[in-house]
């Protein structure tokens, strides 16, 4: 037998054994329902229907199912990221990899947030108080010079400007972008997430609260507690790249300041649960950032021992979760609404005339998503 033939046979046996091993593992290993590394639900076995069989989507879904439950999926993805950061530009699943920080490489692919602007305008028509809007950039916007130029053909600063220009005259806009841009030497954005840090939120809070008519609480009044230094956020979930340093989550306490008297979360069906401004238990979850305000609920009602009878309505996404703790010092009552989680228009759940001020605070990445503010109409 020639050497070539022998080596072919060995190849055959090795490859077949390897494929069979993974086939058997895929079929017989236990199927996890979610991946904590990726912080998402894994797909379930596709249900087969005539229409899904006809157009081939059943086959595609099956492919996704196999991929989601492929043995050692997380390790494969980490390996993939390591390979891709070596060959080519180091962009993995739309995440730009560098050892300083991960950045969203698809930030400039977003659509114009004009739909959201129209929804805000519709809301402003029916709301009689003073309305403030803040669109918060992602780390890709504030640190755009770290991205290759071509990934930046629709800049976040431009996205925010476009959004602001779509708003009606009476609405007050807050220029968070330039505040954050000026401070970008500081730890204002996470290295592994698109969102701002508590400190980034604090820096914007100083401007926002002045516009709302208060003096900001100075930084030295706060005791900052580093609750974890192991946070890895949504950009990590997409790439599983662990070459960057993990992030620090901070809780801000003002010991001699106002305190939260009650904090209730309300679900769509009317169920009320106790909430915490800082929820330590979430530090054990897959997404530590949810330690700010805890699990997602459509409405949170916070009352404080501030004695000024002022009420603020905050309409927000996850960017505001670490921002809201700073507002506690100024209002007797703060009601926080996540319109995306509501089942119907916001007016069905709260009475808009209760509030003389309302703040709409969103990340620009979410504002460009379709229908995110449709419940404001």
């Amino acid at each position, binding site marked *: 037998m020639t*050497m*070539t*033939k022998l*080596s*072919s*046979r*060995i*190849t*055959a*046996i*090795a*490859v*077949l054994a*390897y*494929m*069979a091993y*993974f*086939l058997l593992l*895929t079929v017989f290993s236990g199927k996890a329902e979610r991946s904590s590394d990726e912080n998402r639900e894994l797909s379930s076995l596709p249900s087969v229907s005539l229409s899904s*069989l*006809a*157009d*081939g*989507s*059943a*086959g595609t879904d*099956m*492919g*996704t199912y*196999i*991929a*989601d439950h*492929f043995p050692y*999926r997380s390790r*494969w*993805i980490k*390996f*993939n990221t390591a*390979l*891709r950061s070596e*060959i*080519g*530009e*180091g*962009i*993995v*699943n739309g995440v730009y990899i560098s050892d300083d920080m991960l950045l969203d490489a698809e930030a400039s692919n977003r659509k114009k947030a004009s739909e959201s602007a129209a929804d805000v305008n519709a809301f402003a028509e029916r709301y009689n108080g003073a309305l403030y809007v803040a669109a918060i950039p992602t780390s890709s916007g504030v640190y755009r010079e770290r991205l*290759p*130029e*071509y*990934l930046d*053909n629709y800049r976040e600063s431009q996205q925010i400007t476009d959004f602001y220009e779509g708003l009606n005259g009476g609405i007050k806009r807050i220029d968070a972008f330039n505040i954050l841009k000026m401070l970008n030497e500081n730890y204002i954005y996470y290295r592994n997430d698109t969102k701002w840090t508590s400190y980034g939120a604090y820096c914007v809070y100083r401007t926002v609260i002045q516009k709302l008519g208060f003096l900001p609480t100075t930084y030295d009044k706060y005791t900052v507690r580093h609750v974890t230094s192991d946070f890895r956020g949504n950009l990590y979930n997409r790439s599983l790249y662990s070459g960057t340093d993990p992030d620090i989550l901070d809780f801000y306490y003002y010991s001699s300041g106002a305190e939260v008297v009650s904090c209730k979360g309300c679900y769509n069906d009317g169920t009320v649960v106790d909430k915490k401004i800082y929820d330590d238990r979430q530090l054990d979850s897959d997404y530590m950032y949810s330690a700010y305000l805890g699990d997602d609920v459509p409405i949170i009602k916070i009352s404080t021992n501030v004695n000024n009878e002022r009420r603020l309505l905050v309409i927000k996404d996850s960017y505001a979760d670490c921002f809201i703790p700073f507002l506690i010092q100024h209002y007797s009552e703060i009601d926080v609404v996540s319109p995306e989680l509501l089942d119907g228009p916001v007016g069905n759940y709260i009475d808009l005339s209760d509030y003389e001020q309302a703040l709409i605070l969103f990340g620009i990445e979410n504002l460009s998503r379709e229908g995110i503010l449709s419940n404001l109409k």
Partner: protein
Amino acid sequence: MIYSSLIFIYGFLPISFLAYYLSPKKRQPLVLLLLSIIFCGMLGLKYLLFTTVFTAVNYSACRGTAHYRSKKAASAVIYSGGIMFDLFSLFLFRAEYLSAFRGSAGLGGNFFPIGLSFMVLSAIGTLNDIFSGKEEADRCFLRFWLYFIFFPRLIMGPPLRYRSFTKMVDSRKPELAEIGVGMTIFVKGLAKKVLAADSLYLLYDAVNATSLRNMSMLTAWLGALAYALCLYYTLSGLSDMGTGTGYCFGLKMPQSFNYPLFSVKIRYFAARWHIQVVQWFRRYITKPLSVHFNNRVVKKLIFICVWGIFGFWYSFSINGLIWGILIGTAIILERVFNRGVILKRTGAIYTIFVAVICGVFLSGDTLSHSVRYLFAMIGGGGGFADAFSLYLLKSYVVVLLITMYAATDLFRNMMMRSGKNPVRTAVTAASPLIVLGLLILCTALISYSGSSEMILMKL
């Protein structure tokens, strides 16, 4: 289900080996047919239905053509009816301007039968062979069906003649060493697709994302080179995966590409690029047309036009047509001006140069875009180089160098050379490890989404 997906490599493939090798040798073609039906079914029952109808119509046309062979006219009517049907389905699904018609015909604007272009070539070729008496019409519908939907041949051909295909199936030698050879070819194809083509596509995509108006020369060249290489690696990767799968069943399917990009002559490029498709066009269009003409110039014009049709077959647009015409013209020019001379290195550089320039037409959406792109390549955009082009060069220089080396036949030639060669011995001895290692690498690269779907063109 594309070959470069986890479900194919770790699901469909091993299971089909098991089914094939456990069944008695006589039944193996039937098993292959069943497997192919399942493969089509996974792509959608609609698709399966389409292929079945397509096969049935062609089967009837072939039988009819053969049956009435004594009555020339009747035979010709059936024959041309069959050809019309094949061409009609090709245009119906591939031509963008008919998408509205597809929608109104209830076929769904998005439905595209994968591999249709190859099926149509096979069908027309077979019909023609039967009409001209070179081939008998097969009575066995199942075998005929297998000819069209044999899954290793489905996505990227090659369009074999019916007789070559049946001969291949009848003379199959399924054995362990063949699986080894097959898996080597398959993994080579997978690496071409996933490692090379997908990385190059990122570069091509990055260049495409910038505006042509201020594109520097270097950027434009990088993008064009990336496209030419990416096209080669995508097409040849997918066809290698198919060929390799065929080998695993003991079927010696021919390879479609033979290191064309760095051939020393354009003529060799033409002879090594999508070999069976180019042969098909020569056999069924160029030759029958040329027979009627004695004039050399006319023959050359026909040659160029058929290359144009080949290009049109690729993209179904004017751009593809121009790509083909340019390649055809380059071959003719070479024949006229550079008959005997073979220039080794300069020849290879010249070939890749022509392939890159012509590729600009295949890659562009519109003619004007391609022309403006060429303009940027000669410095009409924004100077020689800028920060962006240097960034791209820095990021992709390793990918480009490796893929360019792998697109030459240097390594293959070294392995083929006779005599004792320590490198060859070492590579042969290590080949199981290399194959397994590459398979693991490629698995990692498709692990996130589970497949690598980019195929550049719908064929």
